[in-house]
């Protein structure tokens, strides 16, 4: 099966057994391809002790620490085939990740994201409220990962408005008029978790405003660390949005610039799910062996999508716990999990977390 065929399936239809078979084949071939195309990658995995061409299980696929993309120009294509370069969010003084895309991988990123998100919100594009300020896209040559995220999700909306002005103040009248204009229609809201909490929800509360968002679908992501510091849990986040705006459909996602596209979405039961397009393994810090269900570990993310850079198997700096396999009450197949936060001593790097530090 090719990646394109994988994409054509219903996005949560593969059982873990079937996925393991497919992924060992796809990721094994991809590891070999990147090894041949990138001297740098070949050196790294040789140093890690991998010289096999055949892998028995998905767990045997070598993984790179995600941080390497900050220090090395890792790509598996000739320079003239670079179609786009993406960079991660990072506070000043931190180095940013550089991800090189060719046309195929760039298009797969968008198609993968579209497939996953439309399985939650449907295929028609909804009137959209971006819970952020317009200036994040002002400098089109170097917008942040925050800007890139907003842009990437904009294809699911139409007639988009920004709920905040460039001072991060809530534009009450703009939002009110927009909701009036689209009364009775479903509305898509998108924002980064910390911005949604701090600059939207808190402003609505402080100013005693009211919006009826009972037809709304909020998609949010980009770092929990700042909210955890303010002792806000996911549960509380959802409850407050429901209480204050009547917002019932609140879904977070887990993703990173190094694997843009195959994001993990939170289901109705509050669990993050990998789609057919990616997989996840939690690993023990002491020896990197795979954790059992319920045992917290370091998050490894895998996807057979990236053809132009060796980012198909990455060890993140996040800590997570696998909650189950194929048996979530929401009915989606595959693994579901939760993210506990960043590993101690890891850099600040979430889209919303880096904004918080800049202030």
């Amino acid at each position, binding site marked *: 099966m090719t990646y394109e065929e994988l994409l054509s399936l219903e996005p949560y239809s593969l059982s873990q057994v079937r996925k393991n078979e497919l992924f060992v084949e796809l990721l094994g071939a991809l590891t070999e391809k990147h090894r041949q195309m990138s001297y740098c990658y070949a050196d790294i995995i040789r140093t890690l002790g991998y010289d096999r061409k055949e892998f028995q299980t998905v767990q045997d696929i070598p993984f790179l620490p995600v941080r390497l993309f900050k220090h090395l120009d890792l790509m598996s294509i000739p320079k003239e085939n670079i*179609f*786009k370069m993406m960079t991660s969010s990072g506070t000043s003084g931190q180095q940013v990740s550089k991800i090189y895309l060719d046309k195929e991988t760039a*298009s797969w990123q*968008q*198609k993968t994201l*579209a497939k996953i998100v*439309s399985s939650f919100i449907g*295929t*028609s*594009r909804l009137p959209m409220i971006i819970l952020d300020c317009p200036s994040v*896209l002002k400098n*089109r040559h170097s*917008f942040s990962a925050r800007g*890139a995220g907003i*842009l990437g999700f*904009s*294809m*699911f909306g*139409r007639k988009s408005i920004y709920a905040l002005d460039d001072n991060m103040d809530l534009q009450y009248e703009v939002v009110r008029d927009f909701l009036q204009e689209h009364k009775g229609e479903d509305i898509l809201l998108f924002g980064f978790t910390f911005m949604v909490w701090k600059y939207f929800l808190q402003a609505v509360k402080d100013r005693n405003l009211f919006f009826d968002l009972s037809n709304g679908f909020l998609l949010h992501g980009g770092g929990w660390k700042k909210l955890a510091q303010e002792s806000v849990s996911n549960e509380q986040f959802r409850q407050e949005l429901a209480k204050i705006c009547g917002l019932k459909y609140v879904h977070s996602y887990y993703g990173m610039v190094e694997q843009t596209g195959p994001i993990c979405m939170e289901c109705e039961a509050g669990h993050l799910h990998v789609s057919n397009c990616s997989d996840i393994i939690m690993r023990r810090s002491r020896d990197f062996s795979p954790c059992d269900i319920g045992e917290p570990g370091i998050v490894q993310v895998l996807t057979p999508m990236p053809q132009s850079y060796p980012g198909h198997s990455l060890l993140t700096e996040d800590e997570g716990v696998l909650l189950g396999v194929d048996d979530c009450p929401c009915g989606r197949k595959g693994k579901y999990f939760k993210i506990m936060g960043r590993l101690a001593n890891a850099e600040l790097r979430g889209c919303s977390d880096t904004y918080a530090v800049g202030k």
Partner: protein
Amino acid sequence: MTDLEKYTKVFAETFDVNESEVEKLEYQGIELWDSVGHMSLISALEEAFDIMLDTDDIIELSSFEKGKEILSKNAYGIKF
């Protein structure tokens, strides 16, 4: 104005080029047709033709020529 004239005008205005130069335009081929420019193009096309493009078509619309093919589909009913 014919649909082709309208279509040509949207590209010329969005990307600030002469109407004689639009035919060879491709996504990422010129500075202004980057990912920000792409969303401006989509909005301008939707407004000019009073249509709503599907998400998949937004992704596929990667050149002036490809756009004509997409807009000619039954769902949009535009003839070039």
